[in-house]
């Protein structure tokens, strides 16, 4: 509710509200961006572009109920565009970087103490072998706690496709379970 009030203030052109929104969702957006690409510059630029555009288009933004989901989706678009464009420069001989290549690393699981080195490596290996959409859906669902509807909005696929992607991802993790 508080966020919605803040959002409405922003829609009316309140720059302070914009700054608060920016800072509120910074962690969420930044870490999501860093999962899409390792290039911090791309993430930072996309974040700036996204909020700048948001500010310029604020008059056409009525009716957004899920602010966090909307912002993640918008950022995803900007990063996609930036990466896509960057890839245009890549010589054809070197295949372009995989988009949405959410990649997991040891750092992601360091906090999980009961995971020994071997299990952790196995998990990372399995996660990174999933398809892009499976990986992204799993990431949004379990790492970020979005519900199916949010994920469907963010990834712009149906709720059923989200469920399927997550389900397949979970099945692939079968050998991880005790």
């Amino acid at each position, binding site marked *: 509710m508080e966020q919605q009030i803040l959002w409405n203030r922003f829609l009316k052109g309140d720059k302070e509200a914009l700054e608060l929104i920016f800072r509120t969702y910074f962690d969420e957006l930044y870490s999501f961006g860093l999962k899409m690409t390792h290039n911090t510059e791309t993430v930072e630029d996309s974040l700036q572009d996204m909020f700048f555009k948001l*500010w310029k288009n604020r008059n056409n933004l009525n009716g957004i109920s899920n602010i966090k989901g909307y912002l993640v989706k918008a950022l995803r678009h900007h990063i996609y565009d930036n990466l896509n464009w960057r890839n245009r420069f890549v010589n054809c001989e070197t295949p372009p970087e995989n988009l949405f290549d959410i990649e997991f690393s040891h750092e992601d699981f360091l906090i999980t103490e009961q995971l020994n080195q071997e299990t952790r490596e196995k998990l990372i290996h399995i996660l990174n072998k999933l398809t892009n959409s499976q990986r992204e859906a799993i990431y949004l669902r379990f790492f970020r706690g979005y519900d*199916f509807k949010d994920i469907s909005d963010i990834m712009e696929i149906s709720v059923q496709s989200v469920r399927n992607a*997550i*389900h397949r991802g*979970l099945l692939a993790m079968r050998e991880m379970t005790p």
Partner: protein
Amino acid sequence: MTISGIMKKRDKASLTYDKILLLPDYMNFIQNEQSGIDACGNNKDENTDSWRHELEKAAFLSQILTSHKKIKYSDDIKKQHAGRLLARIKADKKSKQNNNLPLLLRIAAGVLILVALSVALFRREIFMIAGRQGPNMELIVPSGEKSQLILADGTKVWVNSESRLVYPAGFDGQDRKVILEGEAYFDVSKVKNSKFTVYTQDVKVEVLGTKFNVKSYPKDHTIETTVVEGMVRIEDDEDKVRFSPVLLKTDERMIFRKEYTEHQDSEKINEVPEKITEKDVPVKVKEILISQVNTENVTCWKDHLLIFDNETLEEIAIKMSRWYKVDVKIVDDDLKAHRYTGKFVNNETLDQVLEAINLTTAIQYSVNQNSVQIRSEKKKL
């Protein structure tokens, strides 16, 4: 009420770990069920065992998947980034306000610009786009290479081999102007009340927001404009007016035949093999030709596809020389008129392309460093 509350016991027990984790409130569910089993105590039957096992699996996976490292940034960092955003918004607003400068200031600015323009007049091209649009940038793409860039207004430009693009470093909301020598594909951003104009040596192409390809090599006899999306307006050079303005729509191509002059602009970025242009086409009249085309064949170069669409070997030789940075000479004139259609999608090498041509017509070719010679195959006696 939670899902676990409304589910029948039998249905619940048939859930495997993956189905459990798909429940909207899987965390509560696992907790409730586990404490439920614990409460029942010694009830040891097979079903409960396997149910407990699935719950354990689900609990384990959910734990390792949710207890990852959460990134938290310091307030300082957030403030810093937010500051960058606010500064950008402020700068944007300022540049808009410039249009509302007091009259006197505007006149002063006008005089300044006039001075700048008269200095720039020494180079006619620069004159065209200088003034209030900031310093000009120049992109030169040698043969054998291609390049892409985004202009300040968001317009995307792919620049083909052996081409030159002059563009302003920034646009101030006025009309956008660029100069092209060679070939480029434009994906123009729509900006309200701001035309985008491409100046070539002979014609100018005006658009409002569209995708199109312009091919205007100084050494070519034609200037080709092809519209992929939207509409463009093509006008002749203001001093010459050899044809009246043309509106070109989606999927249309206009070919403009330049009048042949022996000494063309000496400012060339790269030499096209002389042999090819030496034998000039006999057409000395200027004419325009508008036709429907498959735009994919025209713009494929930006995706690194080499396509020959019923083109003569002479035309192909020019294409290859730009594409592969080689000097292609056709020794036997009768070969020049042979037409070929083909598509090379895998970054084929020069040899592979020549070999493909060889497959359909008996030609002999020799590649010597950067020069290629194509001749008719001598009949075996």
